[in-house]
């Protein structure tokens, strides 16, 4: 009986999220675009995430290089470290880790912000003052997440590769030019483009889930905490699911 209820609740929520997502396309296409609020959100979501994304990207590249170096040395292929790290970061680790960190920072912040606006009737206040709160709050945030995450992923990839370059030079000696020549010689558009494209979907998922959880928050302050938490958990899971689907598609298209 309990299992039945859980499945019922699962499908009910999946239906609600689908409806919430479809509203994004309907409302987003309607006139009176919230341009100023969109750019404000791009600044908050994109620019203000740069330090965290940059730091984690740098550590990711450095640590990955230091971890794989002994194995590569034992096989005598240490010269291929830049190629291996480059492909791993650009194709998979960069987009996914950046999206997960983005989900933690931005998903929770959107969930908590909209959640507290909901329980303090600020969303209702917006509605009665002739503003469509979905368009003003949700469309702008989802669009900003969708467009800012790919930019952050590109920056994170670049900083990770720089971290990797420093990691290579801790035990060995490789010039900057040589390191990046090996990286780019082994990267193809079929590595870069699918990874870039999937990061749009990651950003969209984080934005939609954060907004959905916040917008439908209830039970007072407890509900706000739950919204923030569940936004991070659900958007992280969805990032992995999108990644799984993306890898199947690139495999079918022969891009792997």
């Amino acid at each position, binding site marked *: 009986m309990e299992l039945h209820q859980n499945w019922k609740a699962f499908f009910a929520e999946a239906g609600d999220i689908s409806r919430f997502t479809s509203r994004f396309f309907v409302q987003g296409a309607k006139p009176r675009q919230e341009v100023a609020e969109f750019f404000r959100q791009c600044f908050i979501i994109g620019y203000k995430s740069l330090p965290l994304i940059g730091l984690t990207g740098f550590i990711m590249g450095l640590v990955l290089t230091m971890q794989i170096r002994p194995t590569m040395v034992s096989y005598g292929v240490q010269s291929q470290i830049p190629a291996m790290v480059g492909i791993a970061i650009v194709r998979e680790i960069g987009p996914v880790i950046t999206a997960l960190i983005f989900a933690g920072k931005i998903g929770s912040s959107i969930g908590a*912000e909209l959640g507290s606006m909901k329980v303090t009737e600020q969303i*209702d*206040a917006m509605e*009665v*003052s002739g503003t469509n709160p979905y368009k003003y709050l949700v469309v702008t945030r989802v669009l900003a997440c969708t467009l800012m995450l790919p930019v952050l992923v590109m920056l994170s990839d670049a900083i990770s590769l720089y971290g990797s370059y420093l990691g290579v030079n801790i035990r060995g000696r490789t010039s900057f030019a040589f390191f990046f020549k090996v990286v780019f010689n082994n990267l193809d558009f079929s590595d870069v483009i699918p990874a870039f494209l999937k990061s749009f979907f990651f950003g969209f998922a984080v934005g939609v889930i954060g907004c959905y959880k916040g917008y439908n928050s209830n039970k007072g302050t407890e509900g706000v905490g739950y919204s923030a938490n569940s936004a991070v958990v659900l958007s992280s899971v969805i990032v992995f699911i999108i990644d799984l689907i993306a890898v199947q598609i690139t495999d079918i298209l022969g891009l792997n």
Partner: protein
Amino acid sequence: MLVEEKTILTNKINSKQQPVVEIRHLKKSFGNNVVLDDFSIELKKGENLVVLGRSGSGKSVLIKCIIGLLKPDAGTIDVLGYDMLNLDEDELDKVRAKIGFLFQSNALYDSMTVRENLEFPLRRSWIAINQQQIDEMVLEALTNVDLAHTINMMPVELSGGMRKRIALARTLILKPDIILYDEPTTGLDPITGKEIDELIVAIQKKYNTASFIITHDINCVRLVADRVAVLMDGHCYAEGTFDELQKSTDSKVKQFFE
């Protein structure tokens, strides 16, 4: 005075006045919980109508139905001649610009300054307006509530009474024809509560607005009400002036005035 007797008298008094809000046979339930059951009432232009009721009696649900935040199960709501239940999104926004709503929790936008809070409805409205006019209107609204000096402060820096006044200033900024007050004095000390009551009366006199005030604060009712309706068991149980209802011999009405 019970509703049947009162309706005849009120109709005589107000026969020349056009109602700005007409609610007919309103019904609203949440699951099996019937909150409003055949509720009918009218609000005349320039009148302060207080809906008195116990906590959980459906007062907030009633005004949220009027403004369109909740959809009733049955009945009709006409505001300024518009059928609120059959308007499209754009029409509803235009009617809402003529209605002010003071939330119980004030609902000031935390991330905005007082100035931005007041500018928000102006910038979103359908009225073409330039920055100089916006500045003048913001200052006028703040002057009305004696808080012009808070213009650059954040809501979190204000006291409860000040937040209520700022919320009232934001409600007034579009010079609405009708103002809906959701428990305007709840959570305030008696002195601040009285100040808010006096402000409600001053606004009514200055702008000739019609106000729908829901409360269970009897001091507020005494100070602001031109007419009082008692909401009980989902319908309008009694209606009259404050003095008439205070003298009522009906035990259910009397309990509010004891």
